[in-house]
């Protein structure tokens, strides 16, 4: 040791603080790493293993069933309905959530004195507790006590009980979901809009872009495309995870019309305690979410390159 230290004194002198820093780094990272292991990684491994068993909470015997849980899912009418409903919900929320928010953002950005006033109002639902506001919506939509039913009747659509009509319940939840997320997307679009350089509009005007629509199509829309892609993905992910309004307002009903993936997963895992089957469902949900997130990560990279 003494010989080595004498022969490379300079390197040793540099190595000591390096080692001290490495030790500090490891010590600082240890608690978080431990949490990562116990809260994320270990559960993930257990989840995949569980999905290959017929485990039920409290059961004495457990058997390996291989991929039987996954096979069951594809023939399970409830699961298939949940997939269908979830995608339908996303399809309802996505176009209005993206283009509606873009329209609001474009209108709000053009305002000068009232801009922050509108920003606050549209963002208000984002900050409010969705479960509490869902009880308010339930009351608003109540066929005899709420104002919505007579309003719709007044417009000539007849007396509708929106939450108890199998054809309308899912769309009604989508409207509430939209109400809640619109302001969030608006803020993202506002950030995107304010990043577009003024000169581009002037250049477009010189090139003969006359009206507001022309300006929008030639400058705003192309410049905004990274934001639009990004909002599309985040909206898809959050719509995909619809849960709170289902629990508060419909519990999957009427007639399973609002059975969504996370709600069915919650029932199987924590009500019927079919743990193995619910684990397999979770793996499928995870695959969907990871695919969406990968897409999102690719888009972020692209956005970084643009900047």
């Amino acid at each position, binding site marked *: 040791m003494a010989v080595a230290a004498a022969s490379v004194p300079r390197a040793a002198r540099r190595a000591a603080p390096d080692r001290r820093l490495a030790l500090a780094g*490891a010590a600082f990272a240890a608690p978080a790493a431990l949490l990562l292991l116990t*809260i994320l990684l270990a559960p993930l491994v257990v989840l995949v293993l569980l999905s290959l068993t017929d485990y039920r*909470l409290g059961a004495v015997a457990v058997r390996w069933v291989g991929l039987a849980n996954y096979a069951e899912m594809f023939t399970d009418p409830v699961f298939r309905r949940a997939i269908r409903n979830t995608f339908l919900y996303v399809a309802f929320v996505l176009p209005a959530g993206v283009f509606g928010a873009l329209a609001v953002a474009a*209108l709000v950005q053009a305002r000068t004195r009232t801009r922050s006033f509108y920003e606050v109002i*549209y963002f208000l639902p984002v900050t409010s*507790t969705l479960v*509490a506001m869902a009880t308010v919506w339930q009351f608003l939509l109540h066929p005899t006590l709420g104002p919505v039913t007579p309003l719709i009747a007044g417009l000539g659509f007849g007396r509708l009980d929106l939450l108890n009509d199998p054809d309308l319940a899912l769309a009604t939840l989508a409207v509430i979901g939209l109400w809640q997320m619109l302001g969030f997307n608006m803020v993202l679009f506002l950030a995107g809009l304010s990043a577009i350089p003024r000169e581009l509009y002037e250049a477009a005007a010189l090139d003969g872009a006359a009206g507001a629509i022309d300006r929008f199509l030639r400058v705003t829309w192309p410049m905004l495309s990274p934001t639009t892609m990004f909002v599309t993905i985040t909206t898809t992910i959050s719509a995909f995870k619809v849960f709170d309004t289902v629990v508060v307002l419909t519990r999957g009903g009427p007639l399973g019309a609002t059975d969504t993936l996370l709600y069915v997963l*919650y029932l199987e895992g*924590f009500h019927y305690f079919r*743990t193995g089957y619910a684990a397999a469902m979770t793996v499928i949900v995870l695959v969907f979410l990871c695919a969406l997130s990968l897409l999102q990560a690719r888009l972020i990279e692209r956005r970084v390159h643009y900047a």
Partner: protein
Amino acid sequence: MRWRACLASALSHVMLATGAVLMLAPFVWMLLTSIRPAEEVFGAVFNPIPSRFAGGENYAQALFASNVPRAMVNGAMVCLGILAVQLATALPAAYALARLRFPGRGILFGLVLFGLTIPIQVPALPLYLALAKTGLLDTFFALMFPFFLTVFGLFLFRQFFRTYPEEILQAARLDGMGEFEIVWRLAVPAALPAIGAFSIFSVVAHWNDLYWPLIVVTSTDRATPPLGILAFRDAETGGNYGALMAGATLITAPLVVAFLVARRAFVRGLTMTALK
């Protein structure tokens, strides 16, 4: 041409105002009902303005005859407990990820990125089994435990610490400051804006969360705000909507008031997740 500009401006105001009315309608209905006497709930559609102020009795019932206040206290405790552990573990780890070389750093950061894609619903089943086996279900610990880990916080703070000037770190080390001191006395104070935004994000997320509390909590003593309002609604079979709406107002109020007071910080904190 001036009248065209005026027309466009008026049209845009009409559209924005219509949208604003729709956005605000649930809040207005909630507040109006919370001060409406019980006997007027039935005719409310035709007489939206209450004939007398019944806020006293409605709010009294929500405050003294329901679980709502208890749920709010629980919510505050759970949110603060989660936030404290999140900051205590994520800040030093993020500093290490950003500025210190140690074995396993690359793997750890890779796992953080992977973790960003995983919502609570994924580890929920195994975590539930573990809590059931250890007899910890229906405790405050169970409510908080999964959120002690914040991969988003780790990611965010790492990004922030990477921009911290290297010269200051070197100078502090030459002055004999240890890394522990550097983290808590130099890096963390510099990161206060990021910490503030993250805190808003964390508290809003956990005050409003339904999925995990619904799974692990059964007793009313441990109810979080969403569970409190749900239980209140389900108990109100008589249909006292005034008191229910008073309860909903109470549970929504803290975050909405905080938002109105610190508007910019809130918008930043909540949209940060999407702008990472």
